[in-house]
């Protein structure tokens, strides 16, 4: 079984620390570097942490307390600016006893109280117990790179980095939430702040939660949200690109600070290319780059990645994820996740992390670049469609879409025709991202899900996307992705894929300054041409490619040949799932309808991988949840 290597847990109603011990044991399972527990028997508060040592390997024992022993911190993540913070705090007269970044938190809290989070640049989730004020503070980083699950009951709190840990300590929480399953099927991930079980939620990204012993009152508030300033600027693009480049360098430089070897994941796309170039430029040693390819399907980025590696003269490593490996790896991986996740790229990212782990402990990744800098083509296409529609009378729009569809010989016309319709843009966006899975709910759902309200997943999404007057379609979609898809899918994938093999993936683009710069720029600049204008203008001169004629820096992000896998290495797991899966037995999904899809897919009648993959991912996960082990597919693979 896989386990998260590094994490925190705590409870406000555990004077002996036994429940927290149990949670830490769940997080500890695979023998990490260090762990610790602090109990305050008088108040019942216990907090603890498990640690994967990356900085101050010997000195960073947790939880840590401050100079007078009244503030305790359990911390998961990395603070990239801990060195300058330490200097700032020393100047203010604070004394440090370890080189560990966690200690900075204690002193920052003494200095700034809850506002300490604003001083941090990094990825984190932490719990801080202020013994003097009898107050517990929980915090999560700006984008939700590190997880934090919370159970609140009768004025008491339990929390942990893993949902599984909470379920272990309090088995009565093991009740699946059908609405979350519905949302999972439609979206491919469990949207926060809810979770797959009913009585556990997540602390939302950029949020703080405080709990007072005296009153048992728990209050939660946002301390940061992605800025959203659609500003028409007079600054030349080159000037913005220069600023973005400075921040990117700073981000890479601070993320390379570690007492362990650091590498870069290369996908062949522009995001990771810029990261690798910056790392190579700033490193005194030759940097190590890693990429992955497949023995099946048409997605292969290894050639592009190798070209970049050659050009930057990196020590390049490449693996091929074979079908045999997928058969052995995927079922166990999908089953063992903390919450189900249908992102197919999880499999290659996990394999790549495992491959890189013997050589490096930290890898720089490009997560967030698409959401912040406008990389996904759907932003541009939906905005274009919206522009065309708003210029035309309603009655013309539908027929025009049809006309374009039939006359469209060029892919661009066909794509545009798909996007022109009378459905609201957000629905079209959702259908684009999820391959229209919501339209299959009726046919595929079993009795436990058919009772749910049809439009809820969509309306939740619409309400999160904000008001139509708040800016262009592209801007709203980018913002929605930043607060929804990014934390709940992309970052979950990166965190789990890495942590499961004790590798820390650090996302270079989720640097505060870089993200805020991206947020302050007019969407039309981000989305002009092929998108990610700012990143393209950061390419060295002569490398800036003509986006129309070249595919060199087309968007790629470890995509996976899922359709082929479902016909080949994962066909057996799919069949076992269709025969014995709990999601069918328990009445969540309709077995016959799913069987029919599988039959059509395997006999090459149609590609149903967009429907079958979420079913398989969820099925494997739910089976483990109910304690059923897929004997042929699962095992301790890591």
């Amino acid at each position, binding site marked *: 079984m896989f386990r998260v290597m590094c994490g925190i847990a705590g409870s406000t109603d555990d004077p002996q620390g036994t429940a927290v011990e149990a949670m830490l044991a769940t997080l500890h399972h695979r023998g990490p570097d260090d762990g610790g527990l602090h109990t305050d028997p008088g108040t019942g508060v216990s907090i603890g942490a498990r640690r994967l040592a990356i900085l101050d390997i010997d000195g960073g024992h947790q939880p840590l307390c401050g100079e007078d022993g009244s503030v305790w911190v359990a911390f998961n993540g990395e603070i990239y600016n801990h060195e*300058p*913070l330490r200097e*700032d705090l020393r*100047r*203010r007269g604070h004394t440090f006893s370890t080189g560990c970044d966690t200690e900075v938190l204690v002193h920052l809290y003494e*200095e*700034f*109280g*809850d*506002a300490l989070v*604003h*001083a941090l640049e990094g990825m984190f989730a932490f719990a801080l117990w202020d013994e003097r004020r009898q107050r517990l503070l929980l915090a999560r980083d700006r984008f939700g790179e590190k997880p934090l699950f919370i159970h609140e009951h009768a004025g008491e709190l339990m929390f942990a980095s893993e949902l599984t840990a909470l379920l272990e300590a309090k088995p009565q929480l093991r009740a699946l939430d059908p609405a979350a399953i519905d949302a999972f099927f439609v979206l491919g991930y469990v949207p926060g702040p809810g979770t797959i079980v009913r009585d556990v939620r997540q602390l939302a990204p950029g949020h703080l939660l405080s709990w007072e012993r005296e009153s048992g009152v728990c209050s939660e*508030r*946002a*301390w*940061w*949200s*992605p*800025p*959203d*300033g*659609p*500003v*028409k*600027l*007079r*600054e030349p693009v*080159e*000037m913005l*690109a*220069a*600023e973005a*480049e*400075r921040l990117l360098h700073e981000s890479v430089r601070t993320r390379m600070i570690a007492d362990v070897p650091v590498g870069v994941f290369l996908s062949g796309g522009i995001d990771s290319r810029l990261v690798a170039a910056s790392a190579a430029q700033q490193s005194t040693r030759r940097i190590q780059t890693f990429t992955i390819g497949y023995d099946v399907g048409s997605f292969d980025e290894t050639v592009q990645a190798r070209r970049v590696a050659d050009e930057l003269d990196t020590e390049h490593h490449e693996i091929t994820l074979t079908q045999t490996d997928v058969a052995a790896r995927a079922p166990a991986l999908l089953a063992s996740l903390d919450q189900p996740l249908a992102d197919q790229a999880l499999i290659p990212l996990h394999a790549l992390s495992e491959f890189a782990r013997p050589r490096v402990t930290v890898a720089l990744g490009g997560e967030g670049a698409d959401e912040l800098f406008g990389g996904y083509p759907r932003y541009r296409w939906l905005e274009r469609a919206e522009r065309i529609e708003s210029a035309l009378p309603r009655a013309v729009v539908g027929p025009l879409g049809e006309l374009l569809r039939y006359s469209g010989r060029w892919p661009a016309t066909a794509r545009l025709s798909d996007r022109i319709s009378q459905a609201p843009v957000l629905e079209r966006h959702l259908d684009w991202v999820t391959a229209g899975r919501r339209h299959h709910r009726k046919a595929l759902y079993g009795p436990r899900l058919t009772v749910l309200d049809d439009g809820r997943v969509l309306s939740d999404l619409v309400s999160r996307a904000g008001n139509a007057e708040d800016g262009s379609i592209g801007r709203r979609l980018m913002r929605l992705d930043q607060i929804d898809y990014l934390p709940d899918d992309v970052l979950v994938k990166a965190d789990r894929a890495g942590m499961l093999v004790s590798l820390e993936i650090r996302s270079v683009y989720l640097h*505060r*300054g870089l993200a*805020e710069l991206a*947020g*302050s720029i007019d969407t039309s600049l981000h989305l002009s041409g092929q998108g990610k204008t700012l990143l393209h203008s950061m390419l060295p001169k002569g490398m800036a490619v003509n986006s129309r004629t070249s595919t060199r820096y087309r968007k790629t992000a470890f995509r996976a040949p899922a359709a082929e896998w479902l016909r080949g290495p994962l066909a057996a797991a799919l069949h076992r799932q269709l025969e014995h899966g709990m999601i069918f037995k328990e009445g969540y999904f309709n077995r016959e309808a799913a069987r029919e899809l599988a039959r059509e897919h395997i006999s090459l009648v149609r590609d149903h991988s967009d429907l079958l993959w979420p079913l398989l991912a969820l099925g494997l996960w739910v089976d483990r949840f109910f304690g059923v082990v897929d004997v042929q597919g699962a095992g301790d693979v890591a």
Partner: protein
Amino acid sequence: MSRKPRLLVITPDFPPARGGIQVLVHRLVSELERFERSIVTLESPGAAEFDDASGLAVRRVKAIKQLRGGRNLLLNAVAYRQAQSFRPDVTLSAHIVTSPAAAAIRRTLGGRTVQYFHAKEIGAKPRLAAFAARQAHTSIAVSDYTSRLIQATGVRPLDIRLISPGVELPSNVAPESAERPTFLTIARLEDRYKGHDVIIRALPLLRAKVPDVQWVVIGDGPLRPGLEQLAQAHGVADAVRFLGSVSDDERNSWLRRTRALVMPSRLPSGHYAGEGFGIVYLEANVFGKPVVAGNVGGALDSVADGESGLLVDPTDPVAVADAIARLLLDDELAARLGRGGAQRAQAFTWPLISERVEAVLLEQLRASARWDSSAVPA
């Protein structure tokens, strides 16, 4: 020879248009009474009334919006024509965009040329800056930082003088009390390097120490909506007052009320240039107010750390928050730096600054073959 030496001043920036260079050029030409002055500049709204009132000989070039870069070309052409009839002994080019005219005058009509350098323009047009520095007999840089920017273009100018801009001494600098602990920033909202973003990041930390702190932002520009959004994103919108552009009176009134002026200018990225000098720091000092500035660029010349203000790492919100908090919470420190600043600012008053510029011009005059050096007033 009894005639006054003739000084031609070519400048794209001149009042009534607003800005630092505008004030600088205007103050200089007003004070340089030993010269017969002719000014060639661009048209701007209200210029006719302004020129009538000033009594200066100003020739205005129509600033046709559509012309953009062509405007400067026209300005150079008109300046050259003016030189043909005015026959200047010294030509002062106030900005690198007017250096082509100065160079042409020097070559064809003779006379000496002096070139002013500020900062931003050197980063934006490094090749023109190099040309301007090569062509002039003497270059005036407003700070050591500016002088380093010139040298970074690869040119070794014949002669560089450091002369900072000057500061006005308002009649009423008596402090007034503010209803909340207040600090102030004065800058157009068009250059990211001024550090408004870092102040916003510092505000939540600052509020932890000074809960009712208020940040007053004077100045307007395209960055404003983005900064307003950023303040929202950090949950500090209620601590910020964006006033836009205000009258001189209102601005002075805020300078009397504020505890400090804060502008953590950083060095911009790439080849772009940052704060050339930062006259606004001295303007606050004149009111007896301490300042917080970045420890880079022109501020190193305009602010004396620990004497007239605090210099901090302008990219570090914690350091910025800490410096502001010290000034807001430590009355003794704020008063000491305020006094120090007011005293220091006395060395930067306009009469003293124009005297130094005048000395440079007279030196040029003495070196001029055309001018009888014995007639140059000492």
